[in-house]
């Protein structure tokens, strides 16, 4: 493959070029309720060409090798059209040339586990959920995605690093008297199948919680001191801050870029935020990104002060900052864009009980229902929570969507606990889906957060 891709690359006349060939093997098993609706493994593949020529930078992706030559011509024409426009000359910070091949360290290779065994495991977890009287239906999915990535560039780099992701997720809906409540539990791993075995308690606990939500009251809307559990803290950090540490999102937004200058205070002193795709054992792990750049740990916020950013080769050049190895693509249909690898808030010294006690009258918010950002403003939903009264957890409440502001909510973080929990699933939809966008943190106390109920 290396020689084939290099031969193709030699046909391109540019200041810089790269080709990524990717073969994706995907195994998917789905149960809806107790019915099996899908089980099988399939392969898709394709090529992505990128070309820098005279300050124009363009991409083309195709599914067949026979289309590769026309893709290179298309990319060349597009780059020249961009260069001809002349207003935005693109430059790239080029990484050191490497030749790298590696396999992920796996505790039990999922490829070696028979489909029947995967189905049996999925059925077991699903039956634990459907066994609850008020659970009406489920969508239980085993998903295994293997991206065999082969990358060459015109500097001589060759990288082949497969990324293997496996997970079991169960979405569940409970209902009674025409009222529904829902939730989701996930176990997942990029370092082997073993991690998704023997996890009964995760699914049992969530089914019990979703069932209990039928008796919970909607949260009264208003402003609360909130304690986020680590999953919620991860989504909060991802949405509130992480996206705007992705350099491409603010590169051409002068007002945001001005506010996001290195050295600006954006968070409280107890907040240190790191992104580290190279940290082993977490779902977002990779050694090299989809530009052939080595992924590295970046301290994005140091005790509240903006201290780093996530880059592609293009944005690193535009900002005059170092490469970080954070350009990731969903699959062979796409060129890579800047993505978080594994973002988390660093733990502090408080205990969880201490944070809940400090909250006084507030809200303890648990487990994510997804988030979204639009620059200054962001929202993040929770699956359930508990009112906090006089520093102690009270009754369960439901229907929480929280809203915050990039330039004020991070300053209102008052404490973080001493543990660190990283998510077992990704799922960030910035233009392309990134199933390995890991996030996490400790418990976190934030003052005065807006909470919408129903």
């Amino acid at each position, binding site marked *: 493959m290396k020689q084939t891709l290099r031969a193709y690359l030699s046909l391109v006349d540019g200041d810089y070029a790269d080709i990524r060939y990717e073969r994706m093997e995907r195994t998917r098993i789905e149960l809806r309720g107790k019915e099996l609706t899908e089980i099988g493994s399939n392969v898709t*593949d394709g090529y992505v060409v990128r070309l820098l020529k005279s300050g124009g930078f363009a*991409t083309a992706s195709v599914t067949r090798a026979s289309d590769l030559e026309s*893709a290179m011509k298309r990319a060349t024409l597009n780059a020249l059209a*961009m260069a001809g426009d002349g207003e935005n000359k693109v430059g790239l910070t080029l990484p050191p040339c490497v030749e790298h091949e590696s396999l992920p360290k796996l505790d039990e290779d999922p490829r070696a586990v028979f489909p029947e065994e995967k189905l049996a495991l999925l059925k077991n977890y699903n039956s634990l959920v459907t066994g609850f009287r008020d659970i009406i239906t489920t969508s239980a999915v085993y998903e295994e995605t293997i991206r065999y990535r082969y990358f060459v560039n015109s500097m001589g780099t060759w990288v082949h690093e497969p990324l293997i992701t496996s997970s079991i997720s169960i979405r569940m809906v409970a209902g009674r008297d*025409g009222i*529904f409540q829902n939730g989701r539990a996930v176990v997942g791993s990029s370092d082997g199948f073993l991690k998704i075995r023997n996890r009964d308690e995760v699914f049992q606990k969530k089914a019990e919680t979703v069932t209990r939500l039928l008796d919970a009251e909607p949260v009264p809307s208003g402003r609360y001191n909130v304690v986020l559990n680590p999953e919620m803290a991860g989504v909060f950090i991802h949405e509130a801050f992480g996206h705007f540490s992705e350099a491409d999102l603010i590169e*051409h937004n002068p007002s945001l870029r001005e506010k996001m200058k290195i050295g600006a205070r954006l968070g409280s002193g107890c907040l240190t935020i790191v992104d580290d795709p190279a940290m082993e054992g977490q779902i977002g792990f990779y050694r090299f990104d989809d530009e052939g750049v080595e992924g590295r740990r970046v301290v994005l916020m140091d005790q509240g002060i903006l201290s780093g950013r996530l880059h592609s080769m293009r944005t690193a050049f535009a900002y005059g900052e170092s490469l970080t190895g954070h350009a990731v693509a969903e699959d062979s249909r796409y060129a890579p864009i800047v993505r978080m690898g594994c973002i988390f808030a660093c733990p502090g010294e408080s205990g969880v009980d201490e944070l809940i006690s400090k909250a006084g009258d507030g809200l303890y918010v648990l487990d994510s229902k997804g988030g979204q950002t*639009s620059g200054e403003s962001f929202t993040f939903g929770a699956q359930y929570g508990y009112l906090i009264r006089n520093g102690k957890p009270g009754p369960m409440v439901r229907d929480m969507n929280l809203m915050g502001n990039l330039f004020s909510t991070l300053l209102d973080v008052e404490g973080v606990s001493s543990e660190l929990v990283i998510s077992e699933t990704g799922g960030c939809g910035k233009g392309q889906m990134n199933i390995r966008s890991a996030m996490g943190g400790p418990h976190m106390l934030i003052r005065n957060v*807006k909470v919408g109920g*129903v």
Partner: protein
Amino acid sequence: MEKILSLAARVGDSAEVFHTELAETEIIFEDSTLTGINSTHQRGYSLRLRKGDRLGFSYTKNPAERFDLVKKAETFLYKGVMAFFTFPKQHGPVELFSFDPLIEELSVERVIKELKRVCAIISGSVQGKGQCNSAACFGTKLARVINTNGLDVSQLSSFYKVTCQILFPNSHESLRHNSSDICFSMITESRLLDLGRIYKAALPIVDIKEREMDVIFSPHAMHALMWRLQAGASAASLYEGVSRLKGMTGDKITSDKITILDDPGVVGRPDSRWFDDEGVPTSKLELIKKGVLCSFFTNLDYASKTGLEPSGHGYRNGMWGGDPISLQPVPTLSHCSILPGDKSLDEMIADIRRGVIIMGVLGAHSGNIPNGDFSLGLNPGLYIEGGKMLGRLKNKMFSGNVYNLLNNVSSIENKLYESDYGLYPHVCFDCPADPVPALPRQSRFGQGVDGKSFFR
């Protein structure tokens, strides 16, 4: 495709091959500067194989791998996925004029020139107080379905889609315009100037204390409501017992001002389709007519499971994208719209004493969708007082339940706009201080806050 079908027919009782081919170029301007040109040419094939009551499914990008494709579907077949539908027979064709050969002559340079014009008009209209992002995507798309029941349907479409946004400072919050056609077309200057005019009026930040006001959902925010409604009206939800609309066909469930339909057969539109991704004929479907629930929508699979007639809504869509060939058809409303009303947007605004236009939302996916509940960040919300737009609200939320809200419609605009999720007018909802009147089967919708919607 025929070779795949022929091979598949040897191992199954019946089979279907779906093929899609997409060739497109995307041109991106950020802050009025050309920042990217990306082209793609994607092809793929999906196979569904039936034997007895069993179903097999497989897909590939490479038709030369047809033996492997059929083998994978056959392996799937014996794992125990049950299906009770029959592949459709030959029908059509219907000429929808969804392809214009001129699209293949459209140059990147011409589109760059148009986007520059768009950005220049916007920038001029906002006088440097906001930035313009704009993008165009153009190309062709082929969909073809063949099956062993003799079906062979195909449709080649061309498309030119353009989006322009004016971004508010420190944000990706924006006002936006979407348009699409089967060939290159220019956005009218008046439309762009209108967008600039609204932007300037919306620039001041307004702080309000009111919790209950009238609200206008713009076309770009409407998906937050439609998403929940569609979850209720899908045959999949009906079958799984999680539809709040079960047993309510023929009942009045919304204001009689509301008619919601799905019409894939509009002539001359780039996304029109005369068959769905299973080859089933499409037709106009009235989901809600004058407030009365008329229909559920379904694909072949859920039609057979629920006893409904197939409605031509089997599309290979995922909630979060995904490669279409890798997805099995699911019930999807792909051409949804709300029937326009009789007022202009200016008239609707003039009628409002205190209210908000929700131009976009954050967190539409985060609520309790089966229940119809929502809790949305305004992104942005434009504040109206005394019939005039005074500015925009920051960090505000709007919460409620779609079934309650749709019973409080006060007016609907007489014009449709393209959004990412359908064709919608602006719709104005009353949010009175008193609880809304009792709804049909109120107890099925009640959510503990008297059926009211609130700003937070």
